C-alpha cells in the first residue's frame, strides 16, 4: 500500500523554516545581543531541530512524488544531485571561512591570547586540513549543520523507499538506530579528533520523523495532536523547560531546582539530540499546529512573506546566513561592539537574506517562463521552492 502524497505545499513549513534560518543566523554571530530573542534561550531545543525536521518533511514531499511518478532510480538521482549541491555549498563556505581565518592570523597577535591563536595553526598544514575538510571530517565552528544535512540526504532514497511502503516500519527502524547510537555511542569521527558535533545517527530520527509526517503521518497523528490532553501536556512541558532555562541566566534561581531534577536532566546533550530536546521540539510543534492552521489567512499576507520566501530557498539562504554571521562577527570585532551595532547588523543580515530570497524567486519565475511567451508549466507563486 502506497500512501498518497498531498499535492499542495504547506506554507507553514516555509514560514517556520524561514524563521529557523533567521534564528540560526542570529545565534551564529558570537555574543550577539540580539540572539536573546531566539528560542534556545527559553527552552531545551533550538532552531536546528526546526530546520532538520522541516528539511525531512520537504525532502519527502518533493522526492516522494518523484519516486512515485518516476521510479526509484530517477528519484535517487535527484536526491544525489541535491546532496552534491549541498556539498558544493559547504565547500564554498569553507573557502570563505579560510579567508577569515587567514586574515585574523595575519593581523592579530595579542599576547593575552597566544593560546587561543593556536586554533589558527591548522592553516600551517593546508595539505591535511583541506583534505579533511573535503572529507567532511574537519568542520570549523558553526559549519556542522550542512555536513549533517549532506549525510542525511545521501542515505535518504532507500529510507524514502521504505517510508512509502511501510511507514511505521521505517519510523521504528529510525528510532532503533537512535537508541543504538545512544547505547553503543556511535558517531562519525572528526578531525583532528573527537566526533561530529551533530551525530547523524541520532539526528536522523528527526529528519525521518519529518519525512514520515509528510507522507501521511501528520494526518494519522491529526486527532491525537489536537486533543486537549496532548496540548495541555505540551504547554506544561514548555513551561517546565522555560523555568529551567531561566536558571541558566538568573543564577539565584538555581537553588530552587530540586537536586533530583537537576541530576536527571543535565547535561542536555545536543550532539546526540537529547530526548529532552526532542520533547521540547514536539511540544513546540503541537502548539504551533494548534495555533496556526494550514489555511491561516496571514500565511498569504505581506507580514509572513519575508520568512516564507526565505524558507522556500533554504539552502541558498542558509549558506548566506552562515556567511553573514562571519561578516557580522567581523563588524563587531573591527568596527563597533555596541548593542546598537548588534541590532543593526542583525536587522541588516535578515534584510539581506530576504532580499536574496526574493531575487532567487524572481529569477526562478523568469527562468520558468523561458524565452518567448509560453504558459507556465507549474503553478506560480508559493507552489515553488525546493527541498
Amino acid at each position, binding site marked *: 500500500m502506497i500512501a498518497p502524497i498531498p499535492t499542495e505545499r504547506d506554507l507553514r513549513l516555509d514560514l517556520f523554516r524561514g524563521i529557523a534560518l533567521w534564528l540560526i543566523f542570529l545565534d551564529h554571530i558570537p555574543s550577539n545581543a540580539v540572539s536573546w530573542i531566539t528560542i534556545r534561550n527559553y527552552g531545551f531545543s533550538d532552531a536546528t531541530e526546526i530546520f532538520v525536521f522541516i528539511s525531512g518533511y520537504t525532502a519527502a514531499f518533493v522526492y516522494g512524488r518523484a519516486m512515485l511518478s518516476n521510479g526509484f532510480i530517477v528519484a535517487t538521482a535527484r536526491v544525489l544531485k541535491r546532496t552534491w549541491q549541498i556539498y558544493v555549498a559547504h565547500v564554498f563556505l569553507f573557502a570563505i571561512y579560510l579567508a577569515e581565518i587567514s586574515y585574523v592570523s595575519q593581523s592579530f*597577535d595579542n*599576547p593575552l591570547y597566544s593560546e587561543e591563536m*593556536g586554533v589558527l595553526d591548522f592553516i600551517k598544514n593546508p595539505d591535511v586540513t583541506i583534505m579533511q575538510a573535503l572529507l567532511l571530517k574537519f568542520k570549523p565552528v558553526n559549519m556542522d549543520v550542512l555536513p549533517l544535512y549532506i549525510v542525511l540526504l545521501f542515505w535518504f532514497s532507500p529510507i524514502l523507499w521504505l517510508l512509502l511502503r511501510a511507514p511505521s516500519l521505517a519510523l521504528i527502524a529510525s528510532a532503533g538506530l537512535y537508541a543504538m547510537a545512544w547505547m553503543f555511542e556511535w558517531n562519525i569521527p572528526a578531525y583532528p579528533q*573527537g566526533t561530529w558535533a551533530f551525530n547523524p545517527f541520532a539526528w536522523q530520527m528527526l529528519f525521518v520523523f519529518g519525512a514520515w509526517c509528510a507522507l501521511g503521518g501528520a494526518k494519522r497523528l491529526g486527532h491525537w495532536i489536537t486533543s486537549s490532553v496532548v496540548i495541555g501536556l505540551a504547554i506544561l512541558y514548555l513551561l517546565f523547560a522555560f523555568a529551567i532555562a531561566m536558571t541558566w541566566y538568573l543564577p539565584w534561581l538555581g*537553588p530552587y531546582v530540586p537536586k533530583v531534577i537537576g541530576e536527571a536532566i543535565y547535561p542536555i546533550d545536543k550532539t546526540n539530540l537529547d530526548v529532552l530536546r526532542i520533547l521540547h521540539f514536539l511540544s513546540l510543534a503541537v502548539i504551533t499546529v494548534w495555533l496556526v492552521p494550514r489555511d491561516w489567512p496571514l500565511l498569504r499576507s505581506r507580514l509572513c512573506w519575508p520568512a516564507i520566501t526565505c524558507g522556500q530557498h533554504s539552502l541558498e539562504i542558509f549558506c548566506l546566513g552562515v556567511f553573514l554571521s562571519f561578516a557580522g562577527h567581523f563588524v563587531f570585532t573591527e568596527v563597533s*561592539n555596541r548593542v546598537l551595532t548588534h541590532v543593526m547588523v542583525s536587522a541588516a543580515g535578515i534584510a539581506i537574506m530576504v532580499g536574496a530570497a526574493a531575487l532567487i524567486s524572481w529569477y526562478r519565475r523568469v527562468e520558468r517562463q523561458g524565452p518567448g511567451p509560453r504558459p507556465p508549466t507549474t503553478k506560480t507563486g508559493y507552489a515553488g521552492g525546493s527541498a
Partner: protein
Amino acid sequence: MIGRVAFLLALVVLAGSANAENPAEHPADCRTAEVQPERNFALPQTARAIKAKKLNVMVVGAGSSLLPGPNGNKSAYPARLQEALQAKLTGVEVKVGTNVTARRSAAEMVKAMVPELAINKPALVIWQTGTVDAMQGIEPDQFSQALDKGIHVARSAGADVVFINPQYSPRTESMIALGTYAENMRWVAMQQEVPLFDRFSIMKVWADLGTFDLNSATKKLDMAERVHDCIGRLLADLVIESAKSSAPPAGAGR
C-alpha cells in the same frame, strides 16, 4: 612649560603612591559587580591552611595562565594571585606554585597533577582548563570525566579545587566553540561543589564596559599584564571568600 611638566609628574607620582599605599584595594577597572558567583562552595583544606598560617596553592593550567616576555612569570596571574593573597592574609605564609604548560587538555593536566600533588602537597589546586579541549574538539563527555578525575585526584591528596574557565576572546570567538565545554565545566563544578572562577563572564563584562579593549591587535604586553593583575586579585577574593564560608553545601541547582 617646565612648571607644567613638573606638575604633571607630581600628579603621576601621587597617583602612583596612592595605588602603592593600598595594594589590596582593587583599582576601579577590576570591579565586576555584574558577575556574581552562583554559589560559594567551601574550601575546608584552604581554611585549615590559613588557620595554620601556611597556605600552599598550586595553579595547574595551560597557555592562558602564562604571559610571554622576560617578566612573564612575574606578571602572569599566578604571581599576582600570590601577591594579592599575601596582602590580604597578613601573618600567613603564602606560596603559589605553578604547573603550567601551553596546549594541555584537561586529561593531560590530570596526569601532570599526580606527581606534583605528591611533591608539593598544596592545600588548594587552582585549575585553569577548557580552552584547549574546545580547540582540539575533545569529546565533551571525556572532558567532563577528566574534570571529575582531577577533582578526585586533588581531593584524595588533601587539596581543595577551584576551577578557572576559558578566557573571553572576541577575535577567536567564531573559531573556538567554548559553549559546551564551559557548560560542562559549570555543571561539574556544581555537582562536585567546586568554586568556579568565571573568567569568561568577567572578561566579557570588561569588554562590554570598555575596561579593556580585548579586540586590540596590539603586540604589546601592557594590557595583557593589567588583565592578569585583575584576574589575580579577583581570584584572591574568591579564594578568601570561599575559605571563609563554612556553610554546609545545600541541594544542587544548575
